[in-house]
C-alpha cells in the first residue's frame, strides 16, 4: 500500500520516461500520432508511472476526447448545445451523416470519418458549429457541410479549410469606462509593479473589489492574500481557461484578442502571491487557440515580460505553460482542474482545503479564470479608483457577456455591472425573447417579466453566458438538453449527481411523452432540492437550477404540458406505448 516505496523498487527500466503531471500531454501526443491510444501506450504509461494500467484507463475514459478506439482519420465533433439545437443542429447532423457515410458515434466503413457529438465548444455566436480535427467550422448548414466533406475527401486538411473565428465584440461601455476591451499595449500593467511591493498590489486589488468572474464571485484580493500568507516557497498560479458553461465564449475572445493581457494578469498574480510558476488550463475545444497563446508566451519571454527578473524587477521570476484539457466540463471546477493537471481523473476534491491552502501538487495555488486575470491586470494598469468608478456600488467594474441564441447580433458585450437585461436585449436586437438563461444551464433563467432587473451581484449575478430563446422555442427541449448535458458531464463520484441527473432524465421523458401529472412537477422540485442539498460540487448542486427556476418562472407553461384531471387509474403510463414493441411480432 506504500506507493512511493514501491515505485523506487521497480526492476526494469520503463520504455518511456514520464511524470504523472505529464500524463495528459503524453496521451494527447500518442493519440495525435496514431488516432487513438493503443493498448501498448496504456501499458507504457502504467510502467513509466509505476501504476496499474487500469488507473491509466480510468484517466483516459474520463475525458471524452481521449479514445481507445480509432475515431476515423478525420474526427468531427458536432456541438449539441441548446443554442445549436435552435439554429439547425438536427439538419446539420443529418447532413454530416449523409456527406460522410458515418453514423453518429461511429466511423464510416472506410475509416476516414468519425462523427461524434460534443457539448458546447464555445462558438455559440456562430452555431451550428463543429470541430473537425479540433479546427473550428462555424455557421454550418447542409450545403456547407456537403462542401466541407467534399473538400476533405479530396485531401484538403481541416487546418487549411477551417473557418477563421471572428471575435464579434459588439459593444463596450461608453467613454473611458471600458475596462477589459480597450486598447492594449504589452507591458503596461506589469510596468505598474516597479517600485511596488506585493502587499501594495494586493491592497490595490482588494480596494478595487475585483471578484472572480467564473461565477462564484469570490473576492480576488482575498484569495490572493490567502495564498500569499500560506507558508512555503513553491506556489502556483492557475488560469482556468476551461470555459465549458454552455453559451459562454468570452474567454475565447479574450485569449484570441488580448492573450498578452491574460499573461500579464497571471504574472501579476505570481508577483503578488510569491509564485514563480503558472499554468493555463485550456479546454481541448480551444486547442486552435493554443498556438496563439504559446506564441504570445514566447514573445513575452523575449520581451522579458515572462521569465527571470521580469521588467527588470529583481527576484520577480514567473513563467508559465499551457496545459491542454481533454474534454470534461467538470474540470472547470477548480479542484477538478487541479486533479486533471496532475494527470488524474478530473474529479472534484472534497472541500477540506481551499486550493490556496493545498492546490496543485498540494501546494498553495491561486486559481482564477481568464477574465479575472485580465481584469486584475487592468486594475493595476488603470488603478483601483478607475475600476471603482464603473459599475455600481455593490458591483464595481464591468463584465463580459457572451450573448447568443435568438438575436441578430450575437457576440461579446462588455457591460457595466448594473446594466438591465432589457438594455442588453435591445443592444443585441433580440428576436421575440421569451426565456433567457443567464450563466448557462447551471445558472438562472428569467422570463420577460424580469427584464428590468440588472446584471449585478446583488440582483442577477452572471458568469458570462447569456442565452436568448424566443417564443418559438420549446422550453422542455431546452431543459432536456441541459439535463442530458449534466448527466453526461457529471464526474460520477457522488450519488445525487450521478444518479439524480439520470433519474431526472427519465422524469423529463415522461413530460415529453405527455404523460406527466402535476405531481411529477412537484417531484422534480423536491428531487432537485435534494440534489442541491447533497451534491459534492457545484456541478451537481447547480444541475437542477434551470429546471427548478423554469417551473417557478413559467408556471403556465408547465400547467400546459401536464395532463389536467388525470385518471387515478393511469399514472405516467400508456398501455399503447408499452405494447408497441411486442406488436412487432404480430405478423
Amino acid at each position, binding site marked *: 500500500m506504500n*506507493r*512511493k516505496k*514501491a*515505485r523506487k*523498487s521497480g526492476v526494469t527500466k520503463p520504455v518511456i520516461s514520464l511524470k504523472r503531471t505529464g500524463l495528459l500531454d503524453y496521451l494527447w501526443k500518442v493519440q495525435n500520432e496514431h488516432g487513438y491510444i493503443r493498448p501498448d501506450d496504456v501499458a507504457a504509461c502504467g510502467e513509466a508511472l*509505476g*501504476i*496499474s*494500467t*487500469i*488507473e491509466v*484507463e*480510468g484517466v483516459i*475514459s*474520463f475525458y471524452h476526447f481521449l479514445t481507445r478506439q480509432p475515431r476515423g482519420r478525420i474526427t468531427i465533433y458536432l456541438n449539441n448545445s441548446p443554442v445549436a439545437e435552435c439554429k439547425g443542429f438536427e439538419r446539420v447532423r443529418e447532413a454530416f451523416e449523409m456527406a460522410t457515410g458515418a453514423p453518429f458515434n461511429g466511423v464510416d466503413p472506410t475509416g476516414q470519418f468519425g462523427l461524434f457529438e460534443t457539448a458546447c465548444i464555445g462558438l455559440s455566436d456562430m452555431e451550428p458549429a463543429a470541430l473537425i480535427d479540433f479546427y473550428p467550422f462555424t455557421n454550418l448548414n447542409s450545403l456547407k457541410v456537403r462542401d466541407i466533406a467534399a473538400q476533405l475527401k479530396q485531401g484538403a486538411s481541416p487546418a487549411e479549410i477551417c473557418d477563421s473565428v471572428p471575435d464579434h465584440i459588439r459593444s463596450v461601455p461608453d467613454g473611458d469606462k471600458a475596462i477589459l476591451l480597450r486598447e492594449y499595449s504589452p507591458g503596461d500593467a506589469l510596468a505598474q509593479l516597479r517600485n511596488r511591493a506585493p502587499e501594495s498590489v494586493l491592497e490595490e486589488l482588494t480596494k478595487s473589489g475585483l471578484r472572480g468572474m467564473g461565477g462564484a464571485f469570490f473576492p480576488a484580493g482575498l484569495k490572493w492574500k490567502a495564498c500569499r500568507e500560506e507558508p512555503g516557497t513553491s506556489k502556483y498560479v492557475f488560469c482556468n481557461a476551461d470555459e465549458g458553461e454552455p453559451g459562454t465564449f468570452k474567454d475565447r475572445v479574450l485569449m484570441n484578442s488580448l492573450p498578452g493581457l491574460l499573461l500579464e494578469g497571471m504574472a501579476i498574480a505570481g508577483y503578488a502571491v510569491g509564485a514563480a510558476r503558472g499554468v493555463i488550463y485550456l479546454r481541448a475545444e480551444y486547442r486552435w487557440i493554443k498556438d496563439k497563446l504559446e506564441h504570445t508566451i514566447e514573445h513575452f519571454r523575449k520581451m522579458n515580460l515572462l521569465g527571470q527578473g521580469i521588467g527588470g524587477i529583481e527576484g520577480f521570476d514567473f513563467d508559465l505553460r499551457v496545459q491542454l484539457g481533454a474534454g*470534461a466540463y*467538470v474540470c472547470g471546477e477548480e479542484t477538478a482542474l487541479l486533479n486533471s493537471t496532475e494527470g488524474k*481523473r478530473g*474529479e472534484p476534491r*472534497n*472541500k477540506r482545503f481551499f486550493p490556496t491552502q493545498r492546490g496543485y501538487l498540494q501546494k498553495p495555488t491561486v486559481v482564477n479564470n481568464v477574465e479575472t486575470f485580465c481584469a486584475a491586470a487592468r486594475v493595476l494598469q488603470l488603478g483601483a479608483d478607475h475600476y471603482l468608478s464603473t459599475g455600481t456600488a455593490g458591483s464595481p467594474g464591468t463584465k463580459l457577456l457572451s450573448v447568443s441564441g435568438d438575436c441578430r447580433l450575437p457576440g461579446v458585450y462588455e457591460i457595466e455591472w448594473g446594466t438591465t437585461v432589457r438594455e442588453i436585449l435591445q443592444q443585441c436586437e433580440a428576436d421575440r425573447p421569451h426565456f433567457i438563461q443567464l450563466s448557462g444551464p447551471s445558472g438562472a433563467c428569467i422570463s420577460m417579466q424580469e427584464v428590468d432587473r440588472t446584471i449585478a451581484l446583488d440582483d442577477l449575478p452572471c458568469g458570462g453566458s447569456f442565452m436568448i430563446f424566443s417564443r418559438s422555442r420549446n422550453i422542455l427541449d431546452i431543459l432536456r438538453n441541459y439535463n442530458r448535458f449534466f*448527466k*453526461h*458531464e*457529471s*464526474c*460520477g*463520484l*457522488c*450519488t*445525487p449527481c*450521478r*444518479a*439524480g*441527473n*439520470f*433519474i431526472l432524465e*427519465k*422524469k423529463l421523458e415522461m413530460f415529453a411523452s405527455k404523460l406527466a401529472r402535476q405531481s411529477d412537477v412537484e417531484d422534480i422540485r423536491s*428531487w432537485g432540492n*435534494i440534489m442541491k*442539498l*447533497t*451534491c*459534492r460540487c457545484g456541478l451537481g448542486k447547480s444541475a437542477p437550477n434551470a429546471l427548478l427556476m423554469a417551473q417557478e418562472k413559467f408556471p403556465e407553461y408547465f400547467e400546459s404540458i401536464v395532463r389536467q384531471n388525470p385518471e*387515478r*387509474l*393511469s*399514472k*405516467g*403510463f400508456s*398501455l399503447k406505448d*408499452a*405494447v*408497441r*414493441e*411486442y*406488436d412487432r*411480432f*404480430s405478423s
Partner: protein
Amino acid sequence: MNTARKTTDRITITIDGKKIETERGRNLVEVANENGIFVPSLCYWKHIEPPLGTCRVCTCKIDGVAGPACTETVDDGMVVEATTDELVDARHAIVEMMFSEGNHFCPGCEKSGNCDLQHMAYEMGLRQTRFPHVFKDRLIDFNPQRMIMEHNRCIKCLRCVKEVFTDDGKAVFSFRYRGNETRVGVDYDQEARLSDQQAIDAMNLCPTGAIIVRGALHAKPFGDRRFDLVSMQKVAPVEEPKITLPKAKKTVATVSLAGCFGCHMSLLDIDLKLLDLVKIIELNKSPLNDIKQFTRHCDIGLIEGGCCNAENVETLREFRRQCDVLVAFGECAIWGGVPSMRNTIPLGECLEEAYLNCSTSMPDESFVPYHEDLPKILDKVYACSEIVDIDYFIPGCPPDANHIWKSVLSLVAGEQLPVLYSEFKYD
C-alpha cells in the same frame, strides 16, 4: 487539521441540540453514532484517510452549511444538525437513488443479509423508492481470475479504489468513464497478484455484493447474517399495543400478477393467526378462495407482482377501481422484483432469444407467440405504482408473515402496529 488530530483535548460540540463532550479532531460520523444520534453512511470506512465523501448519505448541516459528516472532524463549539426532516428525507432519497440506479435483486444476491446498502435501507425503513428504477443494462465482469465484478450492485463508493493495492503498491481497481456510465474497472493482472486473503478482504470491504470472490461466500441461514436481527440504532423496545379484534369484518381481495405466489404463501405462514384473520376479514376475489370475479366493492386489495402484460394492467386497474386501499406486497409489486431482471434488455431481444435463437428452436418453425387470446407483453415489467396509485407497501421477497399480518391488522383495526427491525426484509 492533521496536527489537531494528534492532540487529545476535550471539546464540546452540539448535535441536534445535545451537548456532546469528545476529543478534538475525531470523525463526526463516529462521534454522532457513538452518542446515539443515527448518522448513516455507506462510503465511510474507518481506515481510509482522507474520508471519501462519495455516497453523501451522511449529509448534515455543519455550522449551518450542508455537507457530509464523514469528511468532517469535530472542533470545539461545532453545531451540527443531523436529524431535521429535510436531512432525513434527503438521506432516504440518496439510498433510494442507489436502489433505483443499480439493479439490486436482493433475493438473488450473495451478500444479502450482510450488505451495507440493504442494511441502511432497513435502518431507514424504506418501503419503496420514490424514484422509478432506471434498469440500466450493465455487464458483469467475469474476467478476473478470482473475482466477479457485479456492476449492477456497485454503488461507486470508491472504497476499493482507494484501499485495495497489490503488495508493490499498484491499484487493483479504478473508476472508469464518468457520469452515469461510471463503473469500477478491475486490473486483471494486478488482481491475479493479490493473495487469497487480500481478495477476500476486498470483497468484505465492498459495502454491497459488487465484488464477489468465487467460492468464498457461504450462504448463512436467515437469522445468522450480520444485519438480520438487531438494528444499530438504539431504540427503546416498543410495547406492542393490545389490539382488540374489530367486530365488523373488512372485505379483502388479493391477486398475484407478475409474481410467483410466494407472497401469498408467506401470507399463510402466519400459522394460528389465520384463525384470527378469518375473524376480521372476508375474502372476496382471491386465489385463496378461487373467487374469480369481484362480487362487491372491497375495503382492501393486496397486490402481489408487478405488471408484465396487458392483462396485469387490466387486473390492477380493476383492483384500483374496486378497492378503497391498495397494498403492494412483495418486491415485485413494489418495483418489479425478479421478473424485472428482463428490463435491462429490450423486449424484442428477450423474445428472440427465448423463441427464435434458443438451442431447441427449429429454423423456419419457431415463432414468437402472438395471438388475440394472449395478453400482450409489455416492453418492461412495471411497478404497480407506475400504473395506479398505491397506498401502502410491504417489502420482502416474500414479506415476512408477521409483517403482512401486522399490516393487514393495522389496516383493519385502523391503528398502526410497529413492524420490528427483524421483520423488515427485502429477501
